[in-house]
């Protein structure tokens, strides 16, 4: 198995995530898409660590950090969603258009 495949997989995942973030109407959907992007980064890190820099484990460490931070982000995001849902009764971002101009 060569590195290119992993990188290609990661790129695909990343772009799918980007596409989802740009197109999902639901905030949670966007959040999920962003998680995909984080995972793409993690695949990269693990793959590079294995193939290019097998001497250390910095790649994996980084991935670990990213996982935990993504978790924190999801927590904050979901609580925000809850708060705003309570106020506005919607999870569709188009409806958030008080602020413009």
């Amino acid at each position, binding site marked *: 198995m060569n590195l290119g495949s992993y990188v290609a997989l990661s790129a695909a995942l990343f772009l799918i995530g980007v596409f989802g*973030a740009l197109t999902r109407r639901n905030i949670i959907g*966007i959040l999920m898409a962003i998680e995909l992007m984080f995972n793409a980064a993690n695949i990269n890190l693990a793959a590079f660590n294995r193939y290019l820099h097998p001497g250390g484990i910095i790649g994996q460490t980084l991935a670990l950090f990213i996982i935990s931070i993504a978790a924190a982000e999801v927590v904050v995001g979901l609580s925000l969603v809850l708060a705003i849902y309570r106020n506005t009764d919607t999870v569709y*971002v*188009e409806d*958030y*258009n008080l*602020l*413009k101009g």
Partner: protein
Amino acid sequence: MLEHVYLIPLIPLFASLVILLGFKEDPHSPAPYLGLAAMGWCLLQAVSIFWGVAGGRIVLPYEASINWFPLATEVAGKAFSYQMPIGVLIDGPAAVMLVVVTLVSFLVQLYSLGYMHGDSRFRRYYAFLSFFTASMLGLVVSNNLLVTFMCWELVGVSSYLLIGFWFEKPGPAYASKKAFMTTKLGDCGLYLALLFIFTKVGSFQIDQVREFATRGYFGMGAATAIGFGLLCGCAGKSAQWPLFIWLPDAMEGPTPVSALIHAATMVAAGIYLIAKTYFIFLAAPIAMEAVAWIGLITAFLAASMALVSYDIKRVLAFSTVSQLGFMMCALGAGGYTAGLFHLTTHAFFKGLLFLGAGSVIHAVHTNDMRSMGGLSKKMPITFLTMLAATLAISGVWPFAGYFSKDMILESVYHHSPVMFYLLTAAALMTAFYMFRLISMTFLGPDRDHEKHHHAHESPLVMTVPLMVLGLLSVVAGAALAHDGFVERLLSFPMPQTPGPEFPRALGLGVSALVLCSLALSWFLYGRGDFSIAEAVKKRFSAVFNVLEGRYYFDQLFLGLVAVADGAAKLAFWIDARVIDQTFVDGWGLLMRVFSELSALFDGLFIDRTVDGFGGLSSDLGTGLRALVADGQVQEYLLYAAIAVSLATIFILSR
């Protein structure tokens, strides 16, 4: 006496300031006596100088000056500091002019005591008069061309103020502006000439410029340019063709003012200036010739216009213009002495004519000669003095005008016989219209009984000046011409030019023709029966219309004014609509360009995308066009994603 000659202009100036600042406005103000006293002092001083010159006790020229301000300059690569000396230069013409100006001023001020009596702005009138005299005297005595020019402008302003003295009436207000602007038009040329002179010479002092010119340093081109510039100024000030239009209108001012400024002194300043800068014209034959021709044209045209006018002051105004043309022509033809001589005598008899006309107007309260007639019995002094002046201006022997006019014709004949004949025609017309004036005013039956009834001889303060001037009109010519005095006094060293000698017989012939012209005039207008004159007028109505329309030069100038106004409007339109819009709203333009760029971006990039995929509503495009206006977070994300894709595209090149 001569070392205090600088007092001559300064005293009236001082008097004028004192009158203006020190006295209250009051119809019975004592201020005029101050002005009169100042003038008297100047007159005494001027006469004593003249007497000294005549008696040979004073050697001319006399010059004295002080430094005015430093002017760091550079001429022909040599830098130096010009100290701008200003002061007095008394030579023959100046000595004569001093007497003429102070005398006429004094007499006019005396006369005005009666004429302007009771005017609500009596004090101001005298202040202005004194101010004028001061400026005029300054012009006469100055040894510095810049100061001459300054005084030149100041007499212009005095003239402006005095023409518009009765400013409540729209006529004087307009006429004063017209006079100022027309002369200012000419002054532009003078201004340039001065600039040119200084650039060449590095000095404004007349003797230095003269030295420079006589050595031929100017060069033909420069001298010609300067000469034309000077001529331009002089044509404006001395009301020469085509700038003479202002003088007839200037008659809106009080009549003594007309006598002083627009007959005797200020209008002569142009002639005087040409005489003062004669060396430049000698170096520029083309300019010299132009002087002669302009003088000739003026003399002829103005005389012809005087033939048909019924306003007594207008006739005199045209006459003045015509006579100034004579002088100009003489100077241009090389008759330096003749021109200045005529200037002197003309000052006396034309001043007299105006003052006399003023006396008549004072009596009948009208300017229209058709409402006059038969005043000779009511106003004998006025009649007699004016008659003397008329004969003088017509050039009848032995009156003053004869000598000077004869001299002019002589020098013009010497220059060019063609010019002589034309000038003679003008002289004949002069005799005709002057006697027409006398005839219509004083002779024949009275045509307006009421006016005639109320008419009476003027008070002594007004008639005394008439008599003095009348006397001078009779004797001045002969006295000055006696024993070649005038040639000694008013001469300019110049090379003899070849030309035909003036035959004596021709002179006699002219005199005879003048008498015939007088007679014809009497025949047409003097017998109280205008039928023949009317018939002639009907027969040649086209000619008369042109003459009464003053050859339509006024219209020409009004057209010029209209053009200037149009240019002004255009300029302002450009300013407000084009330049302002461009440069200030270029601001707005910047904004517009920016928004259009973003619209372009949408059009090129987004809309294409949208179209390419088809079936999508245009929401996306409009959303983007507003850039961020819509507040849609996924649009923001889209831009971020675009940035990412740009980054990936960017690395393709590496």
